[in-house]
């Protein structure tokens, strides 16, 4: 079975059921389930996420991006520091970057105080971390390919029948 097609279908619509997928791909449900389980097991599919506009839900929250400068360790490079940062559950993303800072950390918290505490008492003290630059998100326009609160594009205004 064509696992690339399956991946594309799931990337477009993670809610597609096994029955839907089998119908679209012309495969048995059993085969699709097996393939999907395999992709999940091998961490090719790493998760299924819901994009929530928390602002609209009136739930207090703060997102921040933190540039983290760090010194590499002998033998381990940046990987050990990265592991230490990644283990904090409030860290939603972590990337090794080119540019002025070594890491970019994205953080989901409830208040600015929480972000400050995280940086001051958890992130900065990690051995090898030399400095941090914290940037707070003021407004979100697009998240994971989904636009937020922008004027919707017209979905389909085609005529019913045309040549």
């Amino acid at each position, binding site marked *: 079975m064509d696992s690339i*097609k399956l991946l*594309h279908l799931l990337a477009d619509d993670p809610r597609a059921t096994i029955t*839907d997928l089998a*119908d*679209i791909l*012309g495969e048995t449900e059993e085969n699709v389930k097996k393939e999907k389980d395999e992709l999940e097991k091998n961490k090719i599919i790493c998760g299924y996420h819901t994009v929530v506009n928390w602002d609209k839900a009136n739930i207090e929250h703060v997102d921040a991006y933190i540039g983290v400068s760090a010194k590499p360790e002998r033998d381990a490079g940046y990987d050990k520091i990265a592991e230490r940062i990644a283990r904090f559950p409030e860290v939603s993303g972590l990337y090794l970057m080119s540019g002025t800072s070594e890491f970019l950390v994205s953080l989901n918290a409830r208040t600015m105080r929480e972000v400050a505490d995280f940086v001051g008492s958890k992130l900065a003290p990690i051995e090898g971390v030399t400095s941090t630059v914290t940037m707070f998100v003021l407004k979100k326009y697009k998240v994971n390919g989904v636009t937020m609160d922008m004027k919707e*594009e017209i979905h*389909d205004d*085609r*005529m*019913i*029948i*045309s*040549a």
Partner: protein
Amino acid sequence: MDYNKLLSESAVKMRPSGIRKFFDLAAEMPECISLGVGEPDFQTPWDIRDAAIHSLEIGRTKYTANSGLKELREAICEYMKRKFDLSYELNETLVTVGGSEAIDLAIRALVEPGDEVIIPEPCYVSYEPITTLTHGVPVHVACLEENDFRITAEQIKAVLTPKTKILVLGFPNNPTGAALRHEDLEAIAEVLRDTNVTILSDEIYAELVYGMKHESIAAFEGMKERTIVVGGFSKTFSMTGWRLGFACGPKELIAAMTKIHQSCIMCAPTTSQFAAITALRDCDDDVDEMRKQYDLRRQYCVRKLNEMGLKTFEPRGAFYVFPNITSSGMSSEEFCQKLLQEKHVAIVPGTAFGDAGEGFARISYAYSIDHLREAFKRIAEFLEEHKGEN
């Protein structure tokens, strides 16, 4: 004023399009699920829209040269070379208002009263009316299901006369999805090589082919001098509303077409022309992505229709499938009308594309897979409910 007496005979004689008739029926049913359109469901890629907006911001709001912006014609020449290995000069290129204007211009520039125009059917709906308006004589040739709706060189040879002026080749084809293979084109080229027939090659769907590469007949030996290639932006770049197409061909023919074009159109819309430069130069990835999506739907449609018992050949191009509906015992019109009335699914009877379409219906897959699944569920129910009636 009695317009029954005033209107020109040729305008009065024009047959109302079969599509129009069906459109009126479907329009009364706004909640119906349509598989009836001949245009892509994708939005025009943002880069193209952005280029258009930028052109407006800096004030490019005037007429262009009659034949189109030089930069766009250069981009068309580069594109034809890059995609289809066809070399054209600027004076062999004309920018038109959609591919349909290019078809109109080519026929008007060539046809004298009484000249014959060979039109393989089923086909796009404009070739015949333009031919008759020009007092040409349409000569229909039926593309057959057993040939996967490809026209053959023998069929063309059989209808060639000293009066034949144009052979229309509309492949990849609307409504069947058929595409011509290398050997088909070679054989057709052989038949035409020593004649004075011009080929009107409508290649508007050239970029939407699956599992094969599109070849233009103009690329075959001796054919470029006798072929006018019609291309466009509507289908490839999802730009139907921008109304932009082009023609490439022998400079004498392009010059004659440009004369007609400047009298009736002046020039194609300027904003669309600026957008089109970006489309041709920067949007291969967008086209690849759309093609991938169409291909998934194409395979889905062919499989589902065959499973339901409607024999459907695997189309190689465009975004249509053309199932054989004769097993239902109904005519094309009857089938589509009942399907619309009973299940609120709009598809187009094959006969809207010529008599050769009897026994078939055109289903467009320019729709999301979810939309297709719901429509096909209803078509399956419809077939089940009418089982054994024939």
